[in-house]
């Protein structure tokens, strides 16, 4: 069984695959199972071909892009030159990859094919082993996508393997647990998801179901018995308006939780930024306790983004070293690209750490200004005869090790503040009364997955519309109660009070794409 090297690798892809339509894939394939005529090759029901990056997100030394489905081998042909001969299965071959349309060269890598059913998924599989820089990986993925392949849904490789009898459910389940729970905080979150959070979602659903029973009674019974005039929203909806409004606000608070739950699951992105030669690479090497980034006294040494995984106080962090920020005539093309990437990483980061070299402070001033900076580090304290801290920052020396512990503890604090008070407090008790005004700050993080967030968002939107429709009184009671139904179905989908297709989907949704 092929597993990716580091589970962190899938995170950047997860978001994309989710946006491209979550539902229905597993179900539609199941449907085909039943209608497939006898005699047909049993193992070839996935008619479309999928791809995903199967290794951790770039940059890395190597990356593997995996294709699965009937078109995977023809796609390999498309990506190579016409003279390229498709290798026999299970043999690694050198493959020069080009964009299928523009013919721009992408990388010189290796390719291996597995003929179905003797493959992980049971379908024809191609693995492209390429260089792990972001540019190469992005380019190859774009080329594969342009060849007409579809990005895999989360867990779709596993799902296909399961469908093709390549994995038993038990194996699927153990694969799942193998891939989860990296750090202690993640474990806490996983535990709380099982009981407390479900209780919260259920309590939301109870509020909605109560509200629905009220509006449904107006629809199904008011004409039967007491024919009171119901023109005023208050008369129709009674206490329902308030309880729905409170629930909507509760949802809002959770939606605006700074994505804490997802941060824990996916890892907090920390970016080291600063001017060239400030010593960012030295700091990442110290944090990683190994040489991951090349260090030299020449400004502009770091070009590409180097990322390491750290466990800071139980929180998974992805710390990235980036190129120093500068421009000018003496900056070559490669470095300019490096700066571009550095800025992109900084933008996407959850925590930005600015590194200022104390040796350069006279020329560069106080370093780069930015309101996104969470922590300032004055490096190379050994080169300067100054005492103490600078302007709320930490002064450290990578050479003498001075201040490093303080840096780690400060950074840990920043990261922990970012993910909040997960799993602590008596949140469930507060949430059980979702209809009331739960006080802010006492709430647990409950949205831990992107899928959950999407459902809560859809439910929230429905409740917003409900409140508008409710103002129309009796005339819109049909639409208003439809909105309540939508909201309750969405919340139900989070905790698995769902129809069979969703159950199967959600089982496979908990896997990383490309596994």
């Amino acid at each position, binding site marked *: 069984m092929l597993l990716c090297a580091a589970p962190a690798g899938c995170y950047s892809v997860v978001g994309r695959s989710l946006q491209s339509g979550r*539902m*229905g894939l597993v*179900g*539609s394939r*199941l*449907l085909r*199972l*039943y*209608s*497939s*005529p*006898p*005699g*047909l090759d*049993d193992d070839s029901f996935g008619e479309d071909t999928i791809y995903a990056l199967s290794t951790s997100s770039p940059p890395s030394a190597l990356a593997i892009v995996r294709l699965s489905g009937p078109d995977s081998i023809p796609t390999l042909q498309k990506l190579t030159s016409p003279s390229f001969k498709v290798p026999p299965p299970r043999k690694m071959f050198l493959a020069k990859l080009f964009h299928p349309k523009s013919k721009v060269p992408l990388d010189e890598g290796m390719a291996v094919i597995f003929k179905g059913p003797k493959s992980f998924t049971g379908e024809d599989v191609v693995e492209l082993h390429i260089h792990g820089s972001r540019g190469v990986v992005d380019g190859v993925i774009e080329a594969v996508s342009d060849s007409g392949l579809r990005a895999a849904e989360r867990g779709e490789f596993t799902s296909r393997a399961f469908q093709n*009898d390549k994995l038993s*459910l*038990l194996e699927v*389940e153990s694969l799942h647990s193998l891939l989860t729970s990296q750090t202690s905080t993640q474990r806490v979150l996983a535990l709380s998801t099982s009981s407390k959070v479900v209780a919260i979602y259920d309590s939301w659903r109870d509020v909605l179901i109560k509200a*629905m029973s009220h509006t*449904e009674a107006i*629809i*199904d*019974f*008011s*004409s*039967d*018995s*007491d*024919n009171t005039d119901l023109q005023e929203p208050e008369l129709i909806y009674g206490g329902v308006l308030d309880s729905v409004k409170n629930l909507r606000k509760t949802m809002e608070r959770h939606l605006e939780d700074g994505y804490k739950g997802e941060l824990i699951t996916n890892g907090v992105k920390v970016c080291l930024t600063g001017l060239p030669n400030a010593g960012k690479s030295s700091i990442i090497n110290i944090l990683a306790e190994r040489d991951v980034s090349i260090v030299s006294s020449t400004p502009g040494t770091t070009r590409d983004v180097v990322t390491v995984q750290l466990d800071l106080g139980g929180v998974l962090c992805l710390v990235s070293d980036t190129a120093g920020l500068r421009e000018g005539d003496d900056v070559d093309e490669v470095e300019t690209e490096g700066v571009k990437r550095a800025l992109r990483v900084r933008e996407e980061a959850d925590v930005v750490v600015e590194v200022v070299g104390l040796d350069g402070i006279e020329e560069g001033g106080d370093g780069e200004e930015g309101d996104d900076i969470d922590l300032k580090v004055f490096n190379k304290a050994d080169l300067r005869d100054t005492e103490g801290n600078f302007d709320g920052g930490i002064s450290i020396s990578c050479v003498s090790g001075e201040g490093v512990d303080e840096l780690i503890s400060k950074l840990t604090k920043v990261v922990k503040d970012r993910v909040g008070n997960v799993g602590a407090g008596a949140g469930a008790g507060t949430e059980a009364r979702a209809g009331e005004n739960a006080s802010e700050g006492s709430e647990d993080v409950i949205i831990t997955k992107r899928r959950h967030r999407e459902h809560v968002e859809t439910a929230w939107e429905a409740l917003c519309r409900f409140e508008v*429709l409710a103002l*129309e009184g*009796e*005339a*819109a*009671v*049909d*639409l208003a*109660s*439809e909105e309540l*139904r*939508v909201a309750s179905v969405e919340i139900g989908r989070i905790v*698995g009070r769902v*129809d*069979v*297709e*969703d*159950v*199967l989907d*959600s*089982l496979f949704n908990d896997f990383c794409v490309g596994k």
Partner: protein
Amino acid sequence: MSILLRSIPVRSLSTFPLPPKPPSNPNILKQTHEQGTSYGTIVIGGGHAGCEALSSSSTLTSTLCITQKLSQVGELSCNPSIGGIGKGHLVREIDALDGVMGKAADLGCCHFRMLNERKGTAVRGPRGQMDRDLYKSAVQSILSEKCNLDFLEGAVEDLIIDFDVNGEKVVKGVVTNTGEQILADAVVVTTGTFLGGTLMCGLERYSGGRHLRDSEAVEPPSNALSKTFRGLNFDVGRLKTGTPPRLNGDTIDYDLLEKQGSDSEPIGFDHVRQFNGLRLPNEKDFITCYKTATNEETHRLCLEYEHLLPRYDGAEGDGMGPRYCPSIYKKVQRFPERTGHNCFLEPEGINTNIVYPNGMSGPYPPEIQQKIINSMYGMSETEIIVPGYDVEYDFINPIGLKHTLETKDVGGLYLAGQICGTTGYEEAAAQGVVAGANAGLKSKGDEREFIVGRDEGYIGVLVDDLVTKGVTEPYRMFTSRSEYRLSLRADNADLRLTRKGVEYGIVTDDERVEALEERKREVERGVEALEKFRLFVSEWSEKGGDKMGGTFSSSKKKSSVKKSAHEVLRMPHVTLGDIENIMKSEDDKFQSVSLNSHDTVEATVKYSAYLHRQEKDMDSWRKAQGLLIPPDIVYDRTNFPTLKEEELQLLKKFRPGTLGDANSIQGITPQGLVYLQQFVRKRGRKRDRNRASQI
């Protein structure tokens, strides 16, 4: 709704063969069965389920009706009305499938209201008050015109059960009380309250299925058949229902009471009649209903004489009755803080002084019923003509049925109506259509199954709820039972179902199909006209007030934008009538949508965003439905080593037909589902391989 009748040339009225004043005991149906004749289908019972089963089955195969009294076919045993919220949807769907109820209800109608008129189109419920005699005559005339349909007055004592080549039980016919064996390929049982029926009034209990309306006689129950079902090991339970006393309307002081008139533009149920632009036949004779209420004295009486209420078999002596149609005693008991409950006084027809007090069932001894009635406002002098009574009867838990309403244990045996645990004429009739159609298909050797999906109609919701969830109390239809409520409306029943009826051979009326096609075109034209008609937002608010300009009129910039009538109608408070008035004022030649399609056009536009979403939900539902579980799966440890014992028990008990059904069983885990799904899939493949190797 202000509605104009479409000025379409009036076709012949010959489709309405009713005499103006029928005898109260019509002799329309004659015994036509000849000894020795065998049939495709035998239908036991002539109530609302039976009549629809007769109608749909006889379009497909030779059919025999066996009922105790032919003159009682189509009798409204309880309330004199058809339709209502949710129930009206069912009647419209039955009519879209060329059933009996919608047509008969229009012919018997003597008062009509569109319930929930002021609420959205999807939740409106057409409801007609019936003249009992006219309704019954109409049902009987419609059935008497069917070819392929024989009648036999008698009782069925037993079913003839045989075994097929696979050793499975199949029904082969019935044995009547005269000992005659009548053979058939399919038997539909629609025994209503007659199966093991016990009538109760006060502490008196006596065997019977129903009181006759016009005599003191009681119709006997079907006790022999009840024994047959118990002998076949069906899951038999007891349910009860009740009917209020009938009052002498001449002794009610109407002057003191609030009137409730009919709608001025009664719409009715029959699609073909509406298409022909015909009004309801009895409109000029429509009656008025009145409203009274109980008071504290009534409630005191109800509680004082509680010890004189019957003891039942079910629910430890309390009886399991319809929660949503409680007796007056139950209402008083459950809502002690209420000082009054409404009671509608509904005349039972055009030429009768008999009045039905809706909501006043309560099987006290007759003299107590009299006291209770006299305690109400305007009724101090009111006489009871016939006292109310309760009936407790056998039902078969519908968990044991397939979606065709065929029993899982006995091939060719179908159940419909109260025997499946439902309450209400409309619910019974809806099942009758399904059971009759499938019985007919089966005896024709047609392997197709007539199943209405949850995404196609309330009939589908009803049957699906029954056979997948079972019944613990009498099941009544509500609009909230449908998850696709905005799509399944009373106004579009024909668009949803008539084609399907044609496909399965139960709709054979060309005029009905023509009506459908014309309506389709009209709705399309109507929606298109709304899309094309555009005005500046400023003009919309000028002509239609703020509500038409919407929030846009507030901003200068936005008011210079044009909006189509389609967009404006999508705002919740705007009606199609409002829009049409503006369109008329802009264009003299503009023709508003006919009454016949008004609601459909309005709903199509108003709900458009929602309908799109529901269509997606429906798709997902359909996919799940596609995952069929073969009925012969053995749920044991050998096949399912990984399932929990309780899951195996549940699967054994419910024997779900699809993975969707399995999922709706409480206690089946997602893991269990996946194992089940995998087992089914692997078995299917193995079988395919074997088949392939044989070829």
